[in-house]
């Protein structure tokens, strides 16, 4: 049995069990390993992808539930204007230490700015609260949000 997913603008056929959480299909079957697995419980935000433009955690919901939707992973963000801008802002602010939270945060900030081009600091904090960072890069991530929104 195959499912068809639209990922980063391309139609992709996948053969994983439809109950498989999306992140395993992305990483294991499609070899899109930039989406990270951190908890498998929707608690840490490392596995975020954009689904129809909205930041969505991919570690619990079965892959079948994403059929017919537009999925953008960290690998596909550079092709979008907002995504590229956010990536550049993360580099400029050095908004990472170990980098494990970074994919999820770049996805989340891209989704946020697409919806709200100029969020204030409190809004950014609230929107990013589903995402953990254990190294303490938060101030730099918030600065990256400011840089990216200023460059719009």
């Amino acid at each position, binding site marked *: 049995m195959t499912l068809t997913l639209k990922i980063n603008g391309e139609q992709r056929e996948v053969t994983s069990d439809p109950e498989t959480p999306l992140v395993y299909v992305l990483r294991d079957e499609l070899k899109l390993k930039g989406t990270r697995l951190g908890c498998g419980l929707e608690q840490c935000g490392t596995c975020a992808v954009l689904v129809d433009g909205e930041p969505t955690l991919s570690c619990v919901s079965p892959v079948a539930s994403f059929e017919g939707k537009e999925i953008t992973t*960290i690998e596909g963000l550079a092709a979008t204007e907002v995504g590229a801008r956010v990536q550049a802002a993360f580099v400029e602010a050095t908004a990472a230490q*170990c980098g494990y939270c970074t994919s999820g945060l770049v996805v989340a900030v891209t989704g946020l700015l697409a919806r709200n081009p100029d969020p204030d600091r409190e809004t950014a904090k609230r929107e990013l609260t589903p995402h953990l960072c254990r190294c303490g890069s938060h101030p730099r991530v918030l600065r990256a949000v400011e840089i990216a929104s200023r460059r719009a």
Partner: protein
Amino acid sequence: MTERVSDRLRIREGKLLIRTGKVDIGQRISTALAIIAHEELTLPFDRIEVLPVTTADSPDEGVTSGSNSIEQSGGALRAAAATLRGHVLSEAAARYGGTPGDWSLAEGMLIGPGANRPVPVLDLAGTGLELTVTDDAPTRYRRDTDVVPMLGIAQMVTGEHRFVHDYEVPDMLHARIIRPPHAHARLRGIDISTSEKIEDEGLFIHRDGSFLAVAGPAEWPVVRAAQRLANACDWDPGEGLPEDDIFERLTPDRAIRLAVKNGIPDKDIAIPPPLESPDFAARYERPFTMHGALAPSAALASWDGRRLEIVTHSQGIHVLRDAVAESLGLDSRNVVLTHAPGSGCYGHNGADDAAFEAALIAISIPCTPVLLKWSREDEHAWEPYGTAGAVELAARVDQDGRLASFSAEAIGGTFRGRPRAGKDRTGARKLIANQFRKKPEGPAPAVPNMNPQGGLQRNLDPVYDIPETRYVKNLVPDLPLRTSALRCLGAALNVFAIEGFIDEIAHARGSEPLRFRKAHLGDPRALAVLDRLEELLGDRPASGGRGIAYGQYKNSMTRVAIAVDLDLDETARIRLRNATIVADAGRIIDRDGLTAQLQGGFLQAASWALHEAVTWDRDGVASRDWDSYPVLRFEDVPDIDVSLIDRPDDPSAGAGEAAPGPTLAAIGNAVFDACGLRMRRLPFRPDDLRAAALAQ
């Protein structure tokens, strides 16, 4: 130890390659090393590379810990690079004319008399790589740019950065472990219909006593099979975990006691008698705390019948190699460990155990690489925690209100859980899987760390001028949960306790806390840090409660003063508003990296202060995910202002562990300032604050 330049530097295809034994765990040591090489040899950054760290090739620099990398690996690299620079300058003079002093370097080129064009530095390196490194080679200590991007950041933002979790090699199997409910449980049996069904599906089950794992070609079916197997296991729970109050166990009468003098425990010194009729006495406490790495531990292992290869995010690959070899009865020359990135670890987390467990599975399936990933629950419940602890303090003040006598006793479990090989198979006994194999071994008994500023005694002796002092280390050997090195070791609790206690005394004496500290400090660099903090705070009136604290990591490294402004909301939840951090880390190598380490240290300690405590009961650890073990999130993050004092003529000191101790104390002191509650036990959750208010 004599080193050759080639022990630290190699040249390949026009690039300078740096050899180090210290691994990059997000603290940016790679970037700092590249900067050091650049400073001495002026090569552009795109021509400098840091080689992967592997036991097959890299220098053995022990464990990446204790904020030592910049001094140890950085110092060795600088000496090697300076020796090489001396060589190329002489070589240029010999080949083209003039004296070495007539030649200068820029952008990786030598410019001087007699050469028509600039000469590439690396072209003249030649025999210089075989020179013995001299510590007195003049260093250049200069760079041509102040902003150096962190190595790897460009790949992190695009998802191309590869963690060990992302490795994929031909014929590789994914693996998961099926864990007992707790450390004392043993596997009685597995429902055979379940295990046979799983094997019929093409998955592989490995059982060695109570060590149980499943492996297969695709990851999700392995995750599911592990869940099914877990439900099919029959565990003998034994006596379960002890449930008595941990803080009642943390007493000197249950401990191995050692007097500490000048930061060093000494078994030949009698424990000095307690301070008589102290004016002040207090006990500060901290619960078990986890490293809580964002990525559960992982490792890739393969075994060809003779040679074992492991890719791991361990902080100490040489130490781990020896423990793995010891466990398996292998010659350590046939065990090769290579470091690959994991997520930030902040000390000894599950990395080493995962590496050994991947090896156990791989050995049972020869010639098949095995990528083992721990689950979130594995990491939360099975990593070795930072120990619970207590510090008992007493002080007397003189008529002028100055500290006259001071006593501090640190009480806690061990920070030495790393699998360092030693007598009685200590390395093997510290790898958790060995406790569950058919022939179980371990755990290893806790042995006091006797090193200066090691373990529990780290920062137990404050840097203040106090005429009479008394320090005692109390290692409690039989705690209910396994413990090991967590960022700062004893310094986090000790500085929290001492700086909270100093605050108590200052308030009781009617002294302004910052001035009270300054009155007890003679070190001009400490005073400069506190002066800068005072100046910065002068421009920013306190909103809500304000607390300050000061500490110098290991009393010899980075000096840090911190002020925190916070409010308590109507639910007794702490809202951090502003933090001001002033630091002197000697000569600054990577300004932005240093700032990141201070911010990161502050935020990890803020997480400890606001949230973190491991809980357990008879049936096992209850902190098994991010809901049952909450940590700091974006909504908790204050504005953080970092101010650095550069000391170009003083040695660089590591700073990754400098901020947490002062952060804990500054937050505790700010809570007191905000609401009058003196919080002496971490963490300060709304329930803890309400309980303290009721008890008052």
